[in-house]
């Protein structure tokens, strides 16, 4: 009824089994010669060569700074609110009025800005929510650390000028 019989009559050549083995061995020999004599491989030799990801790749975060190396972040808490993994922790503070050269533009500043990279799911919602283009996701995907504590990055580690997402953190 519901069964489909997929068995078929095998030809004598197929039943002998050895010709098929020889064909398979021919293929592996071809690959072996390609690999051994012509060094053909599909592996990316990782630490020396890195895979190119697209500009839209969402990697490690950074906080963009302006020409005075002051962070663009105004501690509005939008990213912390939108974050589905709850990995962003901001402590807000006020800039002192007499030394603030930006005036009302940057009245507030983050006292601390911690991102727990182990909790982060790299969804990019923080980047979308940010009204100041302060928090961005770079294309850097090398975030391995020796301990869990090191995976929580603070403001000093996050700050870098926004000159494209590809650039490395320059500090």
């Amino acid at each position, binding site marked *: 009824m519901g069964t489909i019989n997929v068995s078929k009559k095998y030809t004598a050549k197929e039943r002998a089994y050895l010709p098929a083995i020889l064909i*398979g061995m021919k*293929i*592996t020999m071809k690959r072996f010669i390609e*690999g051994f004599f012509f060094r053909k*491989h*599909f*592996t990316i030799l990782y630490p020396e060569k890195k895979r190119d990801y697209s500009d839209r790749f969402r990697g490690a975060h950074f906080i963009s700074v302006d020409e005075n190396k002051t962070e663009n972040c105004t501690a509005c808490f939008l990213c912390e609110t939108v974050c589905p993994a709850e990995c962003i922790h901001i402590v807000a503070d006020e800039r002192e009025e007499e030394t603030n050269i930006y005036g009302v533009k940057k009245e507030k500043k983050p006292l601390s800005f911690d991102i727990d990279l182990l909790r982060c799911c790299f969804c990019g919602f923080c980047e979308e929510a940010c009204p100041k283009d302060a928090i961005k996701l770079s294309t850097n995907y090398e975030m391995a650390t020796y301990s869990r504590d090191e995976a929580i990055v603070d403001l000093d580690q996050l700050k870098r000028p926004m000159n494209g997402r590809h650039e490395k953190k320059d500090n």
Partner: protein
Amino acid sequence: MEYFDFIQLMAKILLVVGVSLGVVPVMVWFERRGAAWMQGRVGPNRVGPFGLLQPLADVVKFIMKEDFVPKNANKFYYYLAPLIALIAPLCALSVIPFGSKAIVNGQEVVLQIAQMDSGVIFILAFAGLEVYPIILAGWASNNKYSVLGALRGSSQIVSYEISMGLALLSMLIVYGTFNPHEMVAWQSENYWGALINPFGALVFLISIFAETNRLPFDLPEGESEIVAGYHLEYGAMKFALFFMAEYVAMIMASALISTLFFGGYSLLPGMGTLVSMISSQFGFGEVGVTNVTAVFQFISLCSKVGFFMFLFVWIRWTLPRFRFDQLMDLGWKILFPLSLINLVVVTVMVYFLNQ
């Protein structure tokens, strides 16, 4: 006189054991690199030139690891199994001739560790011993997967030993001797055994793949079904012994099939002229010619063994693993009748040709 005998025996043992154990790391490297090349990968290439020191790094790791014994294991058999696994194929190598004879200090040295008239029986006895480490390891480590692997291994080896023995028997009828030296001499005078008895060679080749637990017959280890089979509970250097034993068994099987079917140490075509060329170039006498011939005979055997080692790796990365019932079908329903028919045909042919 006795002193000389002792020295030459030790030298031969040192050569055979040294070469076979020295080839193991190279084969481990080649197995991994060869697999990578066949699959379009790179393989281990970080440690040393071309990754050649990778086995050394592995050995350091094996030595540094904890020497762990499962709580409910039978300690005696647990430790005994890897030892048998390594020693049995090494013993079997002792009757493989690796050259006809050399003349050292005016005395003749037969290039074979143990000169036995029943050499082939000796090899079979020690090849048959290979089933014990598998059973012992599987049972002694007190793990259900190990026992499953051991059961698979023992039934597989016992099944394939029959067709292997029958294929061997047909060659014994052709050569009319048990002595490996005389077999090689017969083959260098006439034809290679594989040309006279191709079906026997084929059955024997398939059987040694099963005997050494290599793919496509590596069911005792079957990673996807029973974790690692009989050596699941083994770690550190004890696992390394199993690992080495696998390769030594491969060397032994390759040496055996080259001796029985592919002319053993008899010179490859073209080597004879090379020997005479070298001898005339340096003006060697009879002693020199014998020794140069012995060197080339050793090279000839090594190249044949090397080819079969390559074949082991080549087949491993070509074929998938058999299912167990397919394995038994192949062993009992195809290879066993085939080798029986082959034995009868060879016997009849030898009878009529010798008349």
